[in-house]
């Protein structure tokens, strides 16, 4: 990996990390969701600054090419994240359903109370 590409990647990563933190600061992003992105950013940044760390890990795991390891872990991370989102969507669908039902039932009981008052 050339020094030039290392520097470019580092700049992009730092900018990305900074913008994630800024979004959390402005409350545009929930910190719970930012955590996994921040940690993956930091890990990639470490590998970018210290390529020898990556070589060491690749050797340790018995993987032939560093790039294979990056693809493999990247794919695992994405799957993990997408599955996490799926469970969150399921839970939110249930919550939304309950809220909708409660709101409709509340409206109905308000109507009933108003009718009783008018009588």
């Amino acid at each position, binding site marked *: 990996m050339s020094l030039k590409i290392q520097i470019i990647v580092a700049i992009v990563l730092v900018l990305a990390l900074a913008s994630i933190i800024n979004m959390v600061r402005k409350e545009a992003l929930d910190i719970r969701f930012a955590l996994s992105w921040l940690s993956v950013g930091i890990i990639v940044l470490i590998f970018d600054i210290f390529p020898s760390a990556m070589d060491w890990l690749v050797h340790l795991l018995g993987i032939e090419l560093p790039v294979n390891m990056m693809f493999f872990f990247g794919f695992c991370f994405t799957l993990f994240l997408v599955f996490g989102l799926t469970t969150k969507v399921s839970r939110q669908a249930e919550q939304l*359903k309950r809220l*909708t*039902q409660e709101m409709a039932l509340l409206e109905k009981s308000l109507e009933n109370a108003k009718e009783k008052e008018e009588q």
Partner: protein
Amino acid sequence: MRKLVIIPAYNEQGGIVKTVRDVKAHAPEFDFIVINDCSTDRTLDICREHGFPVVNLPVNLGIGGGVQTGYVYAFRHGYDIAVQFDGDGQHNARYLNEMAEKLMEEQLDMVIGSRYIKKEGFQSSGLRRLGIRYFTWLIKLITGQKITDPTSGMRMANRDVIELYAKNYPKDYPEPESVVTILKKGKKVEEVPVQMNAREEGVSSISPKKSVYYMIKVTLAILIAALRR
């Protein structure tokens, strides 16, 4: 004994008045409530004009969430019996009293109106009947009980089942799965023969494209329901 008819309605402007008239004429001891599932047509206006009691969902929840709203309403208002009754004119209210009598006399938890005991009236298309027969077979395999019309949306529940459904009810294509759920809990379910009508207004929620998804989803849901306690 307080009895409630739950009428789920999504874009039923053409059938809702007829449905309510049918209920008023043939099941006058029943209260009724229309659950308007965020219809985009004039269903809500028509209900208000006629003074029908409506629970108006501000967001479309689909048939499961709509019907469940009815069960929550029934539970909170202390109803002893609640029956689902489609708002599109497919069901006939003249069977409601008979269903309620059977429920009480035989101390059942649920009574389903089945098209396939006497095989009279509208019988649905051939392919759909095949699908329904498959679910009958699957439910028999899992619970040991034969439900001839597991997709019937005409179902009467006692207080126990009202409470169960108020807490938990499938979101889409809920009928076969929710029957398995209560059978697994040891509830007593029986069927009575009814005639249904071909749909006059509105469209079926199960289009041909969706039917593959329907079969797979409901099969999986039944199998998972069998795993629950």
